[in-house]
């Protein structure tokens, strides 16, 4: 019996989309190496999958995390239909007055696009989504060892392409933990979106 045969109202679904769309689209944009068209397709496809199971998903502790995982798996299973000519444009938008190196962003997207899709997914989950190795492994249905291996390999490739640029742009800020009040705001912090933890 099809539990979903009735058309349910689910009025909260548009609200969920409204609250998560921006982040999902950014994740998809990174996953696709900067292909905005494909990113939008992926988000719509992923949200379509979420919509199908929304009755159950809406009761989960973390529907947003579930949607992110659906998005990543949609990306990995996606067979690209578009032509290469529709990749990210060279026209580079002005996005911030404190941007240390706008060109670096484009270089980064291109470098991401050249990585194998699973490696890209690992990096995006680890360094954009802030997921742990274990969480990344669970989302991608890989072992922790496989995630570490892919992460190490992908970082090595990016380091070869971007290493000097990253160092120059960000001054080789030391480590990922600890407060460094002397380094001043980074461009993202100037445009921070509040994510109050409570």
């Amino acid at each position, binding site marked *: 019996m099809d539990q979903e045969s009735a058309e349910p*109202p689910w009025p909260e679904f548009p609200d969920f989309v409204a609250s998560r769309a921006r982040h999902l689209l950014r994740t998809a944009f990174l996953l696709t190496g900067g292909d905005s068209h494909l990113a939008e397709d992926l988000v719509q496809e992923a949200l379509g999958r979420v919509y199908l199971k929304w009755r159950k998903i809406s009761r989960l502790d973390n529907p947003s995390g579930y949607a992110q995982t659906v998005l990543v798996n949609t990306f990995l299973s996606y067979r690209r239909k578009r032509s290469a000519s529709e990749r990210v444009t060279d026209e580079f938008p002005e996005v911030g007055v404190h941007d240390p190196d706008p060109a670096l962003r484009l270089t980064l997207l291109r470098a991401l696009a050249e990585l194998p899709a699973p490696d890209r997914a690992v990096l995006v989950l680890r*360094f954009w989504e802030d997921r742990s190795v274990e969480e990344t492994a669970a989302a991608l249905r890989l072992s922790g060892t496989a995630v570490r291996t892919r992460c190490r390999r992908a970082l090595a490739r990016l380091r070869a392409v971007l290493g000097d640029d*990253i160092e120059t742009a960000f001054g080789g800020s030391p480590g990922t933990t600890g407060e460094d009040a002397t380094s001043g705001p980074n461009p993202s912090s100037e445009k921070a979106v509040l994510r109050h933890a409570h």
Partner: protein
Amino acid sequence: MPTDDEFADAFTDGFARALRGAAELAPEPVRHTLAAQAEQRGRRRRRRRRAVVASALAVLVLAGAGGFTALGGRPLGPTGPAAQPDPDRPEMSTRDFVTLITGLLPKGTVQELNTDGPEKLSGHTTGATLLFDDGAGASIVEFSVERTNLRPDAGAVCTDGFQTPQDACDRTVRPDGSVLVIDKLRNQNAKDGREWRVTWAAPDGRRVSFTEYNGQPATANRPEPPVADSTRLTELVTDPAWDRVFAALAPVKDAPRPGDSPPPAPAAGGPSNAELLAKLVPLLPAGAEVEKQDPGHAALTVTYQGRTSMLQVGADPASERGRDELATMDRNPPTPLEVRQKGADGTLVVTNRFGNGKSATNPVLHWTAAVHYPDGSQLWLSEWNGENQYTARPGDPALDVDQLKAIATAPAWRS
């Protein structure tokens, strides 16, 4: 055993920051379209799945009329069951709809960005996204036409300027009881990006929305969106031509009726913002000065020892969700500067410091303290250096996390 820290070095720190910068190049989501198209895709998937089952059973049920026409959108507010096709309702094709909205725009060229809809309008809502070029720069514009169950006071509202950068918002109640809102927003991620939202909401639940950008949402190419004149914007969403579109959309069962009195406000689930602020102020350290209070957001500006920050307080009543959150807290590893302290009675006190993202710490931009009680109720305090929710500057805040913790755990909150 290796840990996550094996990857932490100057390169990965810079890479993570560069990744966040690159993400800002993503297009802005056109939310209405995303939600509506997600529903359509979901339903298509469901139909494909049913088709496979039907084929396997060799039952020809797919050719029947009725089951495959419900591609139209749904009202965005709470609603009842989906609309049924009505043979008496005038039909309007998607092509006619696009022609209509194209005719309402100023002179220029139009490219459809969203044509993934039904051939004929159905359901309670429809819309389209176009790339419109009047010769001064191609811009994305979006139309939405809906039958809703919302009264004008809820159907047309200004965006909260505390949460979203806003240049202006004009709200006008018209003689017929309809409400018109012209909301001029700034994109907090794209420099010079503008997003103008114009909404007209009628007393019977009809609503027309027009959203325009000054270029692509993440890429401004002109100072203002293409339709800049308020009179022209008003004409755009109140044009009599929309009557034809509404006639083709299914009515909403619980649509408001003009002249109805507003429903009673729902009972509050906890203390009001004003009550929270009244409790907060006396708990501030001696010598702290409150410069201004914002009861609308349960926030105040506090200066202590020469440092000024914004402090926001929130309280959630006891709930199953709160109890679940407390019970499952251990499954989530703490973020780098998070400190959790569990009391003998099961109360959990959490302080945290983080930057642009819950794991980011360089620089720290947010200071928080939260108390999770065993009954699921919560009290939280959030502090940052800024004037609103989209501004957060580094630098020592007025109160440190220990002071926040002392305030959050004060017995006064439980009385």
